């Protein structure tokens, strides 16, 4: 069973690094088709060409192959006689050699590189329990360009969280490889807001009216592909909410670049 998880990890990473989910490609194509700025149209078309090259050659579409982030949905009836995190770490080490991936994981102070994309706290595994006895594993490699622009704001309950989001995006979008996907965590505590924002990215497709309105407001900024002007600054927004303290209003924004990579493997 451990081998099954190791192999699923390698397969999920292989697909995540060399292709994009269909719904992501679809949104980029639609943005390219309606783009009125020539430079932005150029960029969007080049991005699509890049994905086609990567998929055809089986090579990582971006040299920043990301930090190893995984979402695991584990059946409540499943009993494992091995360490899930060790099995996923083993898959990451193998994937680093065979795909290959760029070694990105370093000690935060010495900056010493582990050379295999693992280390204390890495891979980062977000675990949920679900009904049944299956295991669903999603590789969500997270590049630093967009992750570095992410932030948590501890707002005053009298503040408007959407003003904070739009203002932060206006300032930070260009560095995060737009057009962006934005995961928003609204409420909770300091750290829960950040976790909600990451989960929002994992949960992406489909927008509520509130999310669509925020998306329109962000796109009206005109920041565009790669921050050089254009009609589409964000391709998607998801807001996840939790109750917060009556004195608090935490807001987290997890930036995701246009290359919104993920791939899921289901183990029965």
């Amino acid at each position, binding site marked *: 069973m451990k081998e099954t998880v190791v192999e699923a990890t390698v397969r999920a990473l292989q697909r995540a690094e060399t292709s994009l989910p269909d719904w992501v490609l679809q949104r980029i194509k639609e943005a390219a088709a309606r783009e009125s700025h020539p430079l932005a149209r150029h960029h969007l078309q080049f991005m699509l060409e*890049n994905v086609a090259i990567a998929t055809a050659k089986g090579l*990582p579409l*971006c040299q920043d192959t990301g930090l190893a982030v995984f979402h695991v949905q584990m059946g409540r009836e499943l009993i494992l006689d091995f360490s899930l995190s060790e099995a996923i770490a083993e898959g990451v080490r193998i994937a680093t050699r065979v795909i290959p991936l760029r070694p990105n994981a370093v000690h935060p102070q010495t900056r010493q590189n582990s050379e295999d994309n693992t280390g204390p706290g890495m891979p980062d595994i977000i675990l949920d329990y679900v009904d049944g006895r299956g295991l669903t594993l999603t590789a969500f490699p997270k590049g630093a360009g967009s992750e570095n622009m992410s932030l948590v704001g501890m707002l005053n309950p009298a503040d408007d969280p959407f003003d904070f989001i739009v203002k932060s995006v206006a300032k930070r979008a260009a560095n995060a490889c737009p057009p962006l996907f934005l995961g928003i965590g609204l409420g909770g505590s300091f750290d829960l807001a950040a976790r909600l924002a990451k989960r929002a990215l994992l949960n992406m497709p489909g927008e509520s009216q509130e999310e669509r309105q925020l998306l329109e407001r962000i796109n009206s900024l005109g920041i565009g592909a790669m921050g*050089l002007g254009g009609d589409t600054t964000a391709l998607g927004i998801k807001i996840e909410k939790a109750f917060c303290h009556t004195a608090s209003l935490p807001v987290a924004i997890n930036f995701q670049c*246009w290359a919104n990579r993920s791939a899921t493997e289901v183990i029965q």
Partner: protein
Amino acid sequence: MTEYHLRTPLSEGDVQKLVAGDLVFLSGPLFTARDKAHALMRRVGSPVSLEGAALYHCGPLILDDRVLSAGPTTSGRMARYTDEILGLGVRAIIGKGGLPGEPFQNRAVYLAYPGGCGAAAAEQLRVLGVHLQELGMAESLWVFEANEFGPMIVAVDAHGKDLYQEVRRSAQEKETY
């Protein structure tokens, strides 16, 4: 929007004729450098001559001598080094996200390569050599031979025009804070 196909090393004339918004394709040697290489060069100097050079903010994915994926990294992290790097003779910095425009005036341009497009970039590059390899794959100073490397957009020109700045300013005007 004019399209240019230029060879490195770049001349002063090459830099002067480029205007923000132009498209550029580069051929010839390119040098990569990011966080660690910049910090090291500040202390001990550059291991290569950067006279007329195009410096690429990139941490590539390399297997043996093959470039597998090599798109741009965020230039903003290297902003603190711009002035001294341009002082070494660099005439173009390639990256994504931009850099403050002032140090570029009258001496260099900033070229934006589409971010995230590592696989497409790799097709336009081959390895000529590597320096500072002790810094690891992403942080080494790689010397690439570029073949029509682009499309890049002149985002900051040598005449004081900065496209990122213009876009940011107009975005802020749309939302009154």
